[in-house]
């Protein structure tokens, strides 16, 4: 079970935070905007008050001026004019200040203009009256005063001041009204925001609380489940060990501690190899099955040896199953003490061996007698008697097969069968198996064949056992095929593995039978057993054998449309040196690639007269195909071909490891492309018409070049991919032998002397330069050596090393160039 609470929870936390932040920002904006607004209002009030005070001050100054002037007119005492003069001065400055301070609306401004004008006129009238008094005497002045002009001005001034004060009051009142409205809105906004924030926080706390409650409930549930399972785990009779993906012990139950004699603390996080030899083979087979199509629900049982703390070895049965968790595949191993069972098994094995021998002895007599009777050794038999003898003989033979199969599967399951694993060329294995079955196929009129198989595909296997597997599958396929049906054996590489397929056109395998087809004595129905004459053990033996080869056997079938049995086997690299399964051919075989059929026929005849075998192809494609599936010692190549020119074909052939060193003799009607062809490495360039003795000489040279002078390049590098690429790059230079370890390199040096060595320094079994000593000890001294490595050298390399190329800097092209130079230098 996987808990996915966190992501959802994180998402809602982000949403909460966003809402909270938005409400907070809104509140802050409202508050600060309100403060700005308040400040503006306060400024307005101050201004308004100042305005009113100033106008009143102006009025009282005008009154002071008038009072001073009236005093003077009444008393004619000039001293009384002093307050008048003072008032005049202050009025001037007061008027200036007012004119600056007035910034209100148009009405106020107009009122001020009128006020100012009235003040001006009033002051003029006062001054005029003083002047009349001084020039024409107090009478004239009194007449002026009594005229009432001055009183009228004063009234105007009073009115205007009242007006200005009224306007200011009205403005302030309006401001106050607006301000209180704004304050209301702002307060509502702030309150709202606070409510929202509080709400969010409340919701958040509520949700969190609920989540915690749910988690607590889940935890309790988990604890209970764990406790329940712990009891089951610890009360199991078998030891149960779980391993983390790296193979360390994660848990072990009470039975496990009892079996192995350790305490739990001593085992946790230790590697499982402390307890079990869950060796390379077992893990590989287990993992292979894991990838295979099988149902793993029942686990996978292996008979192994376990070690207890006191060092005693205990035979155990181990059932493995896989548990996929977030950090990888964990393995559950259920380990059962099998000491007693093993004893019983050993008894059973010896019993079976004895019984089967004891059974075979009388069977030999029975089969022998019947065989002689049928063969006429006892005189001619009547037809009915002959039929009875045949039935008895056939069943005797079946009994023998059954005993053999039972013994076979017994050996395999008890692990006593020995496998002689050697590199096997798949193509060769497939051909041999088909040849062995061709008799049966002929008898049943079945068309049996092998599709072309890449000669580069090799597997590690026991030859006889592989024959047994393929023989069994092929004979099954032939037996179920209708007359004239096709049975095909094919192989396709899939990365590091190969799928070997046996395809038939029989009735197919019913769905319900597929799951148990590989179990002993499983046959789809009774009639199968009678008609096929099989023992019912063949496919279980096949499965045992294939699994001992780290392989998987499986089946695809659509009832009514035949079946495909497949073997999925791990590939290995082609072994060093010549193909050991390819017999030495006495007669050289030459491929003629020539589109003019007449010329081709003539060449064919000539080659035959020289004692060579030859095949003719007429296109570049056909040549490629022929070289892929067949094996030729040399090729005669026409440079002009209908589908491609000869040089292009040569380039393609040189890039393939199989044909990189194939001796090629080019033929052409002209010298065109000669230089390009020579770049690809040709033995000779023959101009048409071709002279016979020249052809013979060229062919001799070609065949000699194949056996004698092809330089041997030993490439030592544990990077297989690189070895593959380098092989293609260096292919044209000679025979490349790629090995991945020092030991393998030394094995090659025991047998052959390389002309050039390309050496990596970091090898799995030691430093590459330790091979230099072995090279120096070769007869004829050390061959030129190129160190091709990812490491930088700290000291200069010793003598046979001609160059050090650092992998990251030097590409394969420069390696190939240097290799060519050294080989040519050596040839002189």
């Amino acid at each position, binding site marked *: 079970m996987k808990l996915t609470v966190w992501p959802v929870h994180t998402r809602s936390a982000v949403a909460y935070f966003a809402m909270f932040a938005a409400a907070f920002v809104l509140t802050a904006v409202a508050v600060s905007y309100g403060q700005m607004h308040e400040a503006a209002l306060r400024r307005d009030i101050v201004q308004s008050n100042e305005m009113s005070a100033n106008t009143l001050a102006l009025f009282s100054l005008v009154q002071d001026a008038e009072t001073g002037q009236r005093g003077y007119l009444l008393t004619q005492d000039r001293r009384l004019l002093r307050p008048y003069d003072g008032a005049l001065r202050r009025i001037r400055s007061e008027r200036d200040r007012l004119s600056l301070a007035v910034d209100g609306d148009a009405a106020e401004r107009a009122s001020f203009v009128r006020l100012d004008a009235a003040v001006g006129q009033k002051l003029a009238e006062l001054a005029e009256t003083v002047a009349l008094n001084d020039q024409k005497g107090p009478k004239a002045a009194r007449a002026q005063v009594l005229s009432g002009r001055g009183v009228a001005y004063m009234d105007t001034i009073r009115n205007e001041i009242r007006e200005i004060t009224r306007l200011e009051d009205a403005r302030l009142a309006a401001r106050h009204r607006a301000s209180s409205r704004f304050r209301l809105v702002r307060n509502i906004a702030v309150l709202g925001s606070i409510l929202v924030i509080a709400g969010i926080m409340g919701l958040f706390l509520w949700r969190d609380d609920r989540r915690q409650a749910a988690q607590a409930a889940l935890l309790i549930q988990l604890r209970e489940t764990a406790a329940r399972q712990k009891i089951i785990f610890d009360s199991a009779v078998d030891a149960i060990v779980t391993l983390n993906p790296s193979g360390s012990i994660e848990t072990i139950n009470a039975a496990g501690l009892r079996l192995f004699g350790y305490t739990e603390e001593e085992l946790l996080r230790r590697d499982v190899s402390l307890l079990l030899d869950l060796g390379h083979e077992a893990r590989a087979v287990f993992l292979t099955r894991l990838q295979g199509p099988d149902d793993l629900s029942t686990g996978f049982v292996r008979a192994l040896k376990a070690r207890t703390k006191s060092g005693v070895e205990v035979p155990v049965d181990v059932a493995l199953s896989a548990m996929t968790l977030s950090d990888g595949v964990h393995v559950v191993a259920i380990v059962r003490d099998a000491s007693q069972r093993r004893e019983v098994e050993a008894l059973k094995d010896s019993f079976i061996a004895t019984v089967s021998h004891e059974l075979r*002895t009388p069977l*030999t007599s029975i089969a*022998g007698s019947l*065989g*002689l009777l049928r*063969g006429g050794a006892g005189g001619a038999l009547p037809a009915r008697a002959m039929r009875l003898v045949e039935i008895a003989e056939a069943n005797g033979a079946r009994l023998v097969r059954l005993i053999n199969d039972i013994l076979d599967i017994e050996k395999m399951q008890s692990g006593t069968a020995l496998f002689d694993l050697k590199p096997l060329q798949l193509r060769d294995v497939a051909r041999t198996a088909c040849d062995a079955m061709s008799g049966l196929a002929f008898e049943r009129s079945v068309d049996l064949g092998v599709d072309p198989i890449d000669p580069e595909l090799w597997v590690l296997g026991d030859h*006889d056992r592989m024959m047994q597997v393929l023989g069994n599958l092929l004979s099954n396929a032939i037996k179920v095929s209708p007359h004239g049906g096709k049975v095909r054996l094919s192989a396709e590489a899939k990365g590091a593995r190969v799928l070997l397929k046996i395809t038939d056109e029989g009735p197919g395998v019913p769905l319900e039978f597929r799951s148990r087809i590989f179990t002993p004595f499983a046959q789809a129905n009774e009639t199968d057993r009678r008609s096929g004459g099989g023992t019912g053990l063949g496919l279980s033996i096949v499965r045992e054998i294939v699994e001992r080869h780290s392989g998987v056997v499986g089946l695809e079938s659509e009832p009514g449309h035949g079946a495909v049995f497949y073997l999925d086997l791990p590939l290995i690299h082609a072994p060093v040196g010549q193909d050991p399964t390819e017999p030495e051919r006495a007669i050289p075989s030459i491929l003629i690639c020539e589109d003019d059929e007449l010329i081709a026929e003539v060449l064919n005849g000539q080659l035959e007269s020289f004692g060579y075998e030859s095949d003719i192809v007429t296109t570049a494609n056909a040549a490629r195909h022929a070289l892929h599936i067949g094996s030729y010692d040399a090729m005669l190549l026409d440079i002009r071909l209908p589908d491609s020119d000869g040089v292009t074909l040569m380039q393609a052939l040189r890039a393939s490891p199989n044909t990189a060193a194939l001796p090629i003799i080019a033929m052409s009607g002209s010298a065109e492309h000669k230089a390009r062809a020579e770049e690809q490495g040709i033995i000779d360039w023959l101009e048409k018409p071709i002279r016979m003795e020249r052809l013979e000489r060229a062919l001799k040279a070609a065949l000699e070049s194949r056996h004698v002078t092809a330089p041997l390049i030993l490439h030592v590098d544990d990077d297989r991919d690189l070895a593959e690429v380098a092989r293609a790059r260096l292919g044209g230079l000679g025979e490349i032998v790629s090995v991945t370890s020092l030991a393998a390199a030394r094995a090659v040096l025991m047998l052959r002397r390389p002309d050039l060595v390309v050496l990596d320094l970091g090898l799995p079994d030691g430093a590459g330069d330790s091979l230099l000593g072995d090279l120096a000890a070769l007869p004829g001294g050390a061959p030129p050596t190129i160190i091709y490595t990812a490491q930088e050298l700290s000291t200069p390399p010793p003598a046979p090393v001609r160059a050090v190329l650092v992998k990251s800097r030097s590409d394969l092209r420069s390696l190939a160039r240097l290799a060519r130079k050294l080989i040519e230098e050596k040839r002189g």
Partner: protein
Amino acid sequence: MSTLHVLYVDDEPDIREIAAMALELDPGFEVRTAASGFAALDLLKSGGWRAEVILLDLMMPGLDGHALLGEVRKIHGCATTPVIFVTARTQAADIDRLIAQGATAVITKPFDPMLLAKQVRAILDL
């Protein structure tokens, strides 16, 4: 064509009889049988009859096939006589061991009586 003298050694009387019949289907064969390793040695040492090929069972009471082969090789004139084992025990490893010990070939029991003589001829390259 001269007669080929064949000695067949097996402790099972039925198999001895059948094998003798099967071998004598070839008119060129003259077959004698022995019921045990000791009987075979007696016959070979008597010097009256010279075996040109010896067929023997591996698992016999008393002197078994391995021991018999060793003894046969010590007899004057039998050092290079072809010895063919006819046995029910035919694992690849067993066959290898027998050949390494000096056996010429191994024929698996149960054998096909109609082919036994032909098999012997093929082994001896006759």
